[in-house]
């Protein structure tokens, strides 16, 4: 099937304006008759549901959590990018666009990225108007900081809780629409299938997670804002409930899956402490602004960090990448950490960690503070005390979190960090309008594949989620719904709904009737281990081939030996998990197939077969400058469709941060 990305013709910077100027509109009276289903209430979902509700559509929003406010966008810490150029440091829409395409290692679609950069400024305006308390300077204006992969300060933030504040802003807008009756909220509900009628998405089957009942919901369009699938690795920084199920059901109903192997491994996470570990905790990338990353120069050095003298420390990022130093993009920083640890320079009990050290920053800030108060020859202890105060103001909540988890005081000892799965750039393939290959079915935010290429820059996920929800879908959805105004709401007695519900019910029964011996959790852990070992930070053909076979075996075992206690007609968290893990297993296989197919290194996808002499990722633009969009063809069977990537503006070169 030929994929039509529907990128508007014309000059790059006019595309979105032209599109908006010519797109079909739905008049207000007709909007009231049109129903839209939104799955997920993170930044993308909550903002889309709120914006569409404001426009007058009848929206039904679903989330599996007990409240829409708990979606995992809330855990994003560092910030949100916007091309505001408030710092007068040369930022512009073009630079944000350029940085994002380059940061994504030339595997993103230029048109989408440019639009993202264009609407970024409006997001900040909208959030401030909603009462989002961004950090401010003493003059009352907004404060910015820098983030990995860029050389300007364009990141807006609210201490280490930017995601929380943005999500609560979108959540409040959503609740306002609920109060006005434009949005109906279904919390503790999980979408278990898309209902197709005459080739279009026309509704969903959802399960009420409190009483286990299956429900049918009609919609003229269905929006999947269900987040990423990092939990396929079992251990990730995602929330425990984050899952691929909604996207996977859509995939099985005909939506192509784009670049599934593109996974972001975030460099600064708290290392694994033991087998009991249920999830990993991110330490915001913003820490790399002030923290310096190092390992001992001597392998297997078991001295305490503070006992290792300055000249015996290897600040390897500063050494290898003098231009960007500790602020190289995430994929680069992660691989560099892995390289040092694999070579025996790791620290901590497991030796799978590197240091992130604030001692210098504390001294630097302390001196500035002393200078401000007119003291130009302050005592060392005073400098440190004042410096700690500044660092606490900037990163206090992160330091506290680190201390709670590890029991170590990061103001005194350097933090130990190690890369962990954090974000998935891959997702459902969508065109410029965010529509999947299924008419009427859209994917927004992390659930789609579109804007970050093979590596996402820090502070861009929040930007994309809100851009899609607030400023893109309100226009592009109208273009589809304008042709649907004659479609009356379809009664859910329609056979398509009955069939879909039966299929969902059959699968649940099948799961419940296995009555095997192994818990869902155990299968999930095993899947995670295969994925992390063979489809993680470094991948090769042999490992991937093995992984595919192992996953297929795991799948068989799962469907014959999984143990789910309890009943399906009640709250049953094991059943919920079982359905999700079953989907993760299938996805894991596709990820390995995609990783195997892409015999090049790009961004977060590092094929050992394709690297430069000094170990950097080596792209193969001649053969792989395309989006791999996989079409589901049946059990363990997919067909590859390629959407060629064309670069009009940013010419692909070997990325260099040296």
């Amino acid at each position, binding site marked *: 099937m030929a994929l039509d990305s529907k990128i508007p013709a014309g000059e790059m910077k006019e595309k979105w304006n032209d599109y908006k100027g010519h797109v079909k509109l739905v008049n207000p009276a007709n909007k009231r008759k049109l129903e839209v289903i939104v799955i997920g209430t993170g930044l993308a979902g909550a903002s889309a549901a709120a914006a569409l509700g404001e426009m007058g559509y009848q929206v039904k929003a679903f989330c599996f*959590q007990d409240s829409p406010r708990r979606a995992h966008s809330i855990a994003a810490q560092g910030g949100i990018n916007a091309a505001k150029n408030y710092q007068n440091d040369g930022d512009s829409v073009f630079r944000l666009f350029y940085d994002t395409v380059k940061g994504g290692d030339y595997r993103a679609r230029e048109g989408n990225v440019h639009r993202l950069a264009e609407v970024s400024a409006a997001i900040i305006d*909208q959030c401030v108007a909603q009462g989002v*308390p961004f950090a401010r300077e003493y003059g009352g204006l907004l404060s910015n900081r820098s983030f990995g992969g860029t050389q300007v300060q364009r990141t807006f933030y*609210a201490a280490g809780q930017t995601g929380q504040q943005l999500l609560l802003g979108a959540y409040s807008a959503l609740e306002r629409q609920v109060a006005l009756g434009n949005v109906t909220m279904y919390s503790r509900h999980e979408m278990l299938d898309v209902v197709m009628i005459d080739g279009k998405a026309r509704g969903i089957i959802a399960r009420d997670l409190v009483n286990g009942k299956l429900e049918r919901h009609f919609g003229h369009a269905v929006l999947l804002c269900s987040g990423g699938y990092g939990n396929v690795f079992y251990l990730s920084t995602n929330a425990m409930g984050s899952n691929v199920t909604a996207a996977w059901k859509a995939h099985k109903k005909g939506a192509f899956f784009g670049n599934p192997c593109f996974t972001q491994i975030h460099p600064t996470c708290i290392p694994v402490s033991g087998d009991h570990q249920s999830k990993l905790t*991110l330490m915001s990338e913003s820490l790399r602004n002030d923290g310096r990353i190092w390992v001992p120069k001597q392998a297997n050095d078991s001295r305490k960090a503070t006992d290792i003298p300055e000249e015996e420390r290897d600040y390897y990022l500063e050494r290898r990448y003098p231009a960007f130093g500790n602020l190289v993009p995430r994929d680069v920083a992660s691989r560099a950490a892995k390289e040092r640890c694999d070579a025996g320079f790791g620290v901590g009990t497991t030796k799978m960690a590197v240091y992130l050290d604030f001692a210098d920053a504390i001294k630097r800030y302390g001196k500035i503070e002393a200078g401000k108060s007119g003291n130009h020859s302050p005592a060392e202890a005073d400098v440190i005390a004042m410096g700690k105060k500044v660092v606490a103001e900037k990163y206090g909540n992160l330091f506290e979190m680190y201390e709670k988890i590890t*029991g*170590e005081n990061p103001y005194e000892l350097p933090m130990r960090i190690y890369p962990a799965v954090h974000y998935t750039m891959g997702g459902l393939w969508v065109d410029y309008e965010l529509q999947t290959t299924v008419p009427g079915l859209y994917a927004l935010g992390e659930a789609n594949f579109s804007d970050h290429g093979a590596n996402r820059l820090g502070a861009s996920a929040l930007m994309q989620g809100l851009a899609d929800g607030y400023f893109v879908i309100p226009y592009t959805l109208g273009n589809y719904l304008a042709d649907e105004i004659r479609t009356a709401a379809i009664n859910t007695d329609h056979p398509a709904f009955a069939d879909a519900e039966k299929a969902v019910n059959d699968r649940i029964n099948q799961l419940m009737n296995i009555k095997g011996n192994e818990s869902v959790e155990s299968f999930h852990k095993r899947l995670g281990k295969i994925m992390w070992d063979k489809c993680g930070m470094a991948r090769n053909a042999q490992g991937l081939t093995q992984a595919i076979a192992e996953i297929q075996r795991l799948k068989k075992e799962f469907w014959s030996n999984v143990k789910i206690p309890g009943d399906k007609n009640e*709250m049953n968290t094991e059943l919920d998990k079982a359905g999700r893990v079953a989907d993760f297993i299938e996805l894991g296989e596709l990820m390995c197939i995609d990783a195997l197919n892409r015999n090049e290194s790009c961004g977060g996808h590092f094929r050992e077969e394709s690297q430069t002499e000094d170990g950097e990722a080596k792209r193969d633009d001649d053969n792989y400058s395309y989006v791999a969009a996989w079409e589901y063809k049946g059990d363990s069977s997919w067909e590859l469709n390629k959407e060629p990537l064309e670069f009009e503006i940013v010419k692909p070169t070997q990325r260099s941060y040296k």
Partner: protein
Amino acid sequence: MEHYHMNLTLKVWRQKNSQASGNFDTHSVKNISSEMSFLEMFDVLNEQLIESGKEPIAFDHDCREGICGACSMYIDGQPHGPWQKNTTCQLHMRAFKDGDTIVVEPWRSKAFPVIKDLVVDRGAFDRIIQAGGYISVNTGNAVDANALPIDKKKADDAFDAASCIGCGACVATCKNGSAMLFVSAKVSQLALLPQGEPERQSRVLNMVAQMDKEGFGNCTNTYACEAECPKGISVANIARMNREYLGASLGSED
């Protein structure tokens, strides 16, 4: 940090559904690492229950990094357990020692009915927000973000109030089951910002009316909520809400 292992006895509230009456079950877990989080210890217990053919204990949890506000256990007589400024998911087992018996109960409040085991329905919080916890600005209506400078102190105070995660520990710990800390945090955040000004009066009146309707108790200023709040939200916010309410209701024409 010294690591150690421990054996524990857990006394956990079990309740099949909202209609059923519940009871305590006693379980023992062995060889728990001091490096585990409290919920990871629960994972171990649940795996153990599944293994022996029993139903695992249902509890709310999601992000496990102290920000989503889902986790909600009353552990040994305190919401989120013995550590201050902490959520259940961030409570680590080094807070306990070998041989301890730990009692785990759901939030107890008329407004938070138990759904199953340790899971409660906190929908009341969403309905309070629906009553006015927002600024009525449609998408696309905003002026430039820097058009309106905001006093840093006020912005910081608004941020502190906005850091509420809506977990409900304030209600759970309050001897009166009052939701004033939660409501006042949102009222304060929006009252402190110039963007919140136009709806300032109706917001506080409507949110308080909804709070009362949900069946929460009344504040008697014991300040237990502030002491137990995982985000350390200050009771100064409650005073601010009292002021806002007094001003709004005295000035109101109806």
